[in-house]
């Protein structure tokens, strides 16, 4: 059944550094910094103030709207400050700083669901919402919004366990060590959507995880099927996974639900399982710490809000010639300049690169090889998109070349032998097109007001 998607590239997966290392629990830090915005959508309003005592799993951030997710204390202790702190997304974000009392007193709010088998879809959505679950693969879109908008539309439910970015092994280890959570979460989703089968998409370089899951499925008789997919980047991108497993394409500018698909990351499925069976909201995250700059790469489970410096400390520190820190994978992750930024809900990986500086070409010249066209999973033509953007022609970029469909996966930039900054240009181009659209909309509204 496993099909394919368009284009793609084959970066060296570099997973061997942490593939065989069991998830270790990081010793909780003395202080955690929990940003009030770790998801796509409205930031949360803090529910606590300086001096308050909080318990593990207690809600400390109230959703700021429908597309938002509550935030919970990841340790027990005292609120030291509620103030803007450096964020992994750049700039500062209002954060709750908690001093850990190392008691791990669990909040009374943490209550498992009494009858998981008898839950209605609406009840599951409520549990997911209260647990603050967002897309844990890195997209951080609130999961309750995703489920409720896809209910009744989706007949294909897919668990994304492709983990196609190099270095990252957190999902791989989770599947090996906690198959009951993965399958349990998938079963809950099957029940919620009323589908006969939930498909788990795994890249072929994780065959052992597929075997473990298959054994768990055989044991429990869960309505889940494992699909082993080609090892190719970006296999784990939503549109590409949808295409590879269901053979359907998500219409341009639409959501997976419009193609009858709903896709969840494997750690999101685990989080749903824990929220239902343990009542535990998202308070911790499995983070792969790897890269040439890390002395001893590891898979660590740490409380949300742990400064990334603590992760590196637990891995023996960094090499002195480390020149780049990346939160996320090497293809789509964000470079960081501060080791005090905290681990958020979407953090699955921290990389440190050391040694030879990366290749930088000061005046890159396109040689027109067309490799970017072959690599684009959306079948765009990055070579022309780049040329038109460099000329400032956003009109052609947007309409003729479908630039807004770019998923910024970085495959074109990875493959480009001339080292053009393609993805960066498209990211900026898309932002400018958005700004143009907003400006046009504002102008139109002003016109209307004038007429009225």
């Amino acid at each position, binding site marked *: 059944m496993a099909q394919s998607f368009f284009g793609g590239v084959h970066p060296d997966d570099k997973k061997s550094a942490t593939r065989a290392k069991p998830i270790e629990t990081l010793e909780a830090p003395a202080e955690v910094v929990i940003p009030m915005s770790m998801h796509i959508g409205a930031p949360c309003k803090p529910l606590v103030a300086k001096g308050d005592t909080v318990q593990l799993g207690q809600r400390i951030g109230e959703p700021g709207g429908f597309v938002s997710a509550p935030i919970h204390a990841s340790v027990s202790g005292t609120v030291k400050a509620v103030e803007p702190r450096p964020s992994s997304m750049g700039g500062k974000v209002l954060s709750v700083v908690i001093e850990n009392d190392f008691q791990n007193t669990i909040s009374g709010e943490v209550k498992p669901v009494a009858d998981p088998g008898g839950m209605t879809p609406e009840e599951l959505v409520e549990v997911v919402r209260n647990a603050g679950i967002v897309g844990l693969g890195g997209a951080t879109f609130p999961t309750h919004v995703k489920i409720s908008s896809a209910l009744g539309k989706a007949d294909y439910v897919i668990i994304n366990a492709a983990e196609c970015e190099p270095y990252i092994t957190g999902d791989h280890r989770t599947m090996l060590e906690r198959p009951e959570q993965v399958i349990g979460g998938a079963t809950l989703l099957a029940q919620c959507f009323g589908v006969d089968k939930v498909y788990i998409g795994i890249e072929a370089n994780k065959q052992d995880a597929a075997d473990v899951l298959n054994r768990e499925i055989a044991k429990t008789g869960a309505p889940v099927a494992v699909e082993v997919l080609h090892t190719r980047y970006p296999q784990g991108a939503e549109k590409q996974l949808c295409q590879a497993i269901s053979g359907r394409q998500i219409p341009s500018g639409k959501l997976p639900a419009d193609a009858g698909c709903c896709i969840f990351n494997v750690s999101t499925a685990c989080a749903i399982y824990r929220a239902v069976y343990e009542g535990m909201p998202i308070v911790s995250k499995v983070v792969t710490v790897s890269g040439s700059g890390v002395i001893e790469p590891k898979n660590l489970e740490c409380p949300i809000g742990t400064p990334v410096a603590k992760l590196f400390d637990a891995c023996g520190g960094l090499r002195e010639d480390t020149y780049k820190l990346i939160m996320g994978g090497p293809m789509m992750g964000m470079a960081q300049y501060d080791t005090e930024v905290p681990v958020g809900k979407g953090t699955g990986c921290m990389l440190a690169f050391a040694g030879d500086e990366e290749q930088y070409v*000061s005046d890159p010249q396109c040689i027109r090889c067309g490799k970017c066209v072959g690599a684009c999973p959306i079948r765009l033509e990055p070579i022309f998109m780049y040329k038109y953007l460099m000329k400032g022609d956003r009109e052609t970029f947007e309409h003729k070349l479908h630039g807004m469909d770019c998923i910024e996966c970085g495959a074109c930039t990875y493959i480009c032998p001339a080292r053009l900054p393609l993805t960066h240009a498209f990211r900026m181009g898309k932002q400018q097109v958005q700004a143009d659209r907003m400006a046009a909309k504002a102008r139109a509204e002003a016109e209307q007001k004038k007429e009225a």
Partner: protein
Amino acid sequence: MTDYKNLKLIASSSPHIRSEEDTRSIMLDVIIALLPALLMRVYQFGSWSFRALTLTVCSVAGCLFWEWGYRKLMKKSMALGDLSAVVTGVLLAMVCPVTLPYWMILVGSFFAIVVVKQLYGGIGCNFLNPALAGRAALTAAYAGAMTTWLAPDATYPAFGSADIITAATPLAIMKEGTAESFAELTNTYSLGDLFLGKIGGSLGEAPALMLILGGIYLLVRKVISWHIPVAYIGTVAAVCLLSAPAGVGAAEYMAYNLFAGGLMLGAFFMATDYATSPVTRLGQIVFGVGCGLITCFIRRFGSYPEGVCYSILIMNCTTWLLDKYIRPTIYGALRREKKEAAAK
């Protein structure tokens, strides 16, 4: 423990890793792929070997000099290290007769590098293949010198002597396209001669065997894709099979047409030139078929015995058109009927 404050960190945009392949490694691969054919041919020239070698070196040096000089003069960034000028130099030498005066190949390299490549903006911006355009310019300017084909067993003339033993190229022998001319060709050269390069012709258009090996190397290294060479050679093969003169075995006629002349050099190394061929796979197939048809047309009906050079140059001119109209359907594009349904 490491003091993180002392790290000198770069915060740049993703992706943070790059494929190892870059422009320089691609050009180096092309040079490596050309070497077996070039070296074997140079060896076969016997007493002309030295001359063949120095002509190649002269061509490469010329290309590098013109590229350096132009970019220096125009105060543009220097990228001689990308080796693209070296590739042009080697290819230009390979499509010229080994007897060509040194100064003429310098003129050719000037035309290739300055007029065809740099005036249009440098690497990736030219619309004609520089080496072939250089050859075409030289053929127009010095028709005699450009069609003096050394006989395979010619000896280098003694000092002061101007006698050069020449031979007709296989394609020239069968130019008339009759059964008799084809019989003359088969009597002059065996297929093995063609395959191993024991024929009259330009410095690097043979041996076919080594050129094919070089092409396979480029395919394996993913420097080129199969689309253009297969479409090109396949079209020539098909047309020859269907159009063999009466009284000639179609398969034999096809084989001679494939391995004589510059088809292998053209299909693997010239038509696949990035800057002058389409970027989409389908566009590349159309491009290759077009090259094949024009090659056959010139060989059969044109006044030149060989059509590879001009067929590729002509198709180079259509590249922008192929790129404009042959475009991939993007992921998730709404089909027309669905669009109409959505509009209702």
